[in-house]
């Protein structure tokens, strides 16, 4: 682990990533204590301070109905992180199991599972989620469902590729020769070898899930108002450019900061765990 520490601390960018992600997580977790106006996460109207540029009272300005933008961004982080964690917690196990069995077993199950994966991968990611959200009611839960549906195939593909090459490796053959069960080989022999790649991808994907989820709500197909969401905040503010610039710039930067942080950590992990793509 010495090398890990060296890579992490020698590279200022990994440190920056750690810092940004910590910041985002702390803001999201302790939103109730940090947000200057916690009640502004909901449907609150303040006609005195509406559509105001940043001031000392509202460091990121206020929105069209007078809610503090900073408070809303903090709560939006909370939603984004919950969404990201839930999506990955469902999509990764599904994808990993499909990929492991397709890659290890081969034959018919390989053909069926991987063609199924191909079907999902053949619809551009956002389009599948958009189509699903179009049919389903736009709620947080459905947004999670739609993003999960487009996410698992990537893990299936990733694990499949590793498993298929590991299938031929000596240690797997050795395990087969001594009569280990398929179950044992798949989960005890092959899976541990996929883990570095999976973990790296999960870190990078936290950022991408945030991007996709915010894209859905940007199109009005995700989390609905008054629940604060970074994507719908940008969409709403875009109509008031350039005068009310803070309405779009701050939520936009908020997305950038969070995703950038996760990507920096993902890159550092890739270097540490030696996993490529």
């Amino acid at each position, binding site marked *: 682990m010495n090398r890990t520490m060296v890579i992490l601390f020698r590279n200022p960018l990994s440190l920056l990533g750690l810092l940004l992600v910590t910041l985002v997580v702390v803001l999201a977790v302790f939103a109730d204590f940090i947000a200057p106006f916690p009640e502004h996460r909901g449907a609150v109207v303040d006609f005195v301070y509406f559509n105001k540029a940043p001031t000392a009272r509202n460091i990121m300005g206020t929105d069209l109905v007078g809610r503090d933008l900073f408070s809303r961004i903090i709560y939006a982080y909370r939603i984004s992180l919950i969404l990201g964690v839930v999506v990955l917690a469902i999509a990764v196990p599904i994808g990993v199991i499909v990929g492991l069995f397709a890659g290890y077993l081969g034959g018919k199950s390989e053909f069926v599972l991987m063609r199924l994966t191909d079907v999902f991968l053949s619809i551009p990611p956002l389009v599948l989620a958009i189509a699903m*959200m179009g049919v389903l009611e736009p709620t947080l839960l459905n947004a999670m469902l739609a993003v999960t549906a487009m996410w698992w195939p990537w893990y299936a593909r990733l694990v499949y590729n590793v498993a298929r090459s590991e299938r031929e490796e000596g240690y797997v053959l050795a395990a087969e020769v001594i009569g280990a069960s398929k179950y044992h080989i798949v989960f005890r022999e092959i899976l541990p070898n996929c883990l570095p790649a999976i973990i790296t991808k999960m870190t990078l994907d936290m950022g991408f899930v945030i991007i996709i989820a915010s894209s859905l709500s940007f*199109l009005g197909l995700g989390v609905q108002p008054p629940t604060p969401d970074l994507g719908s905040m940008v969409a709403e503010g875009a109509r008031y450019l350039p005068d009310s610039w803070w309405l779009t710039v701050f939520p936009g930067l908020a997305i*950038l900061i969070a995703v950038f942080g996760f990507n920096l950590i993902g890159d550092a992990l890739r270097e540490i765990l030696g996993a490529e793509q």
Partner: protein
Amino acid sequence: MTPVLRLLARRLGISLIVLIGVSMLVFGIARVIPGDPARIALGPNASTEQIAKLRASLHLDESIFVQYGHFIKDLSRGDLGISLYTNRPVTTDIAQFLPATLELVLVAGVLMIAIGLPLGIWSARFRGRFADHIIRLVSLLGVSAPSFVWAVILMLLFAYYLPLFPIAGRITDTYTIESITGFLLIDTLIAGNFQAFLNAAWHIVLPAFALALSGIGQAARLTRANMIETWDKPYIEMAQAYGYAPARIANRFAFKPSMIPSLTIIGLDFAAMLGNAFLVEAVFAWPGLSRYGVAVILRKDLNAIIGTVLIISAAFLIVNLIIDLLIAFLNPRIRYSQRDVK
């Protein structure tokens, strides 16, 4: 070149299977819709007879398998049904809106390749030096925001604060260009109206860049990673031992082999732009498939939703097919079976 033909046939076959799968998937999604699509389409004031008639014409009263059968039968005749939103055939709608989206995506794709690859090569060649750090930082920033955020930022900076580019649209209204291909950059040239061409090109700059930024970042990162992996191969050391110029080693001896693994993913990124175009079009009021797509989705216009997703998936599969052929062209291992020269 038979191996290439065999590959092409195989890929076409798989693409067809996948496309049928996509149609089933999309059809399935569209049918689990809560509520009655006929009622939603006709609005709350529609009479029961009207609804019943529409349900019958959409085969909504039959089993889902029969419905799918009807759908496939119509599809094979190039009929995607009538859009309940525009009251026109879905194919007509798509034919009207798709070219603008494709034009945007293609220009963004060209930007991605033309900027992303050289950045990646540079970054790999000067690994660990200042230029490398800057390129890595910029390309990581590029992939760290959704394209609508870049669209808003670019618009604010280069259309409002520095009014260099137009704020919205494909072309200034004063030009009337006959639509032949639907691609304004081509139609204006066919019409011989160079002014209009420049105007259209001027309009596409910001949306295309907004759409391309994450792709550029991704392409640069990928190219860098694969170049660095190739750099450790003995044949690169051999090239160095023969004293070839470093630029030549990078641009030729290392680049070509490293492109083979990169291409598949660059193809996927390119295809992702088909989805992201929705976001950029919304910001720049680009008259493409996005506005239509979002409108039909909000109105639960099933025929149009299915049609739009199918067309985009078909475009996606075509892109992948082209990428596969490109890989076969670059990789002699695919073109020739191994060890046939003894």
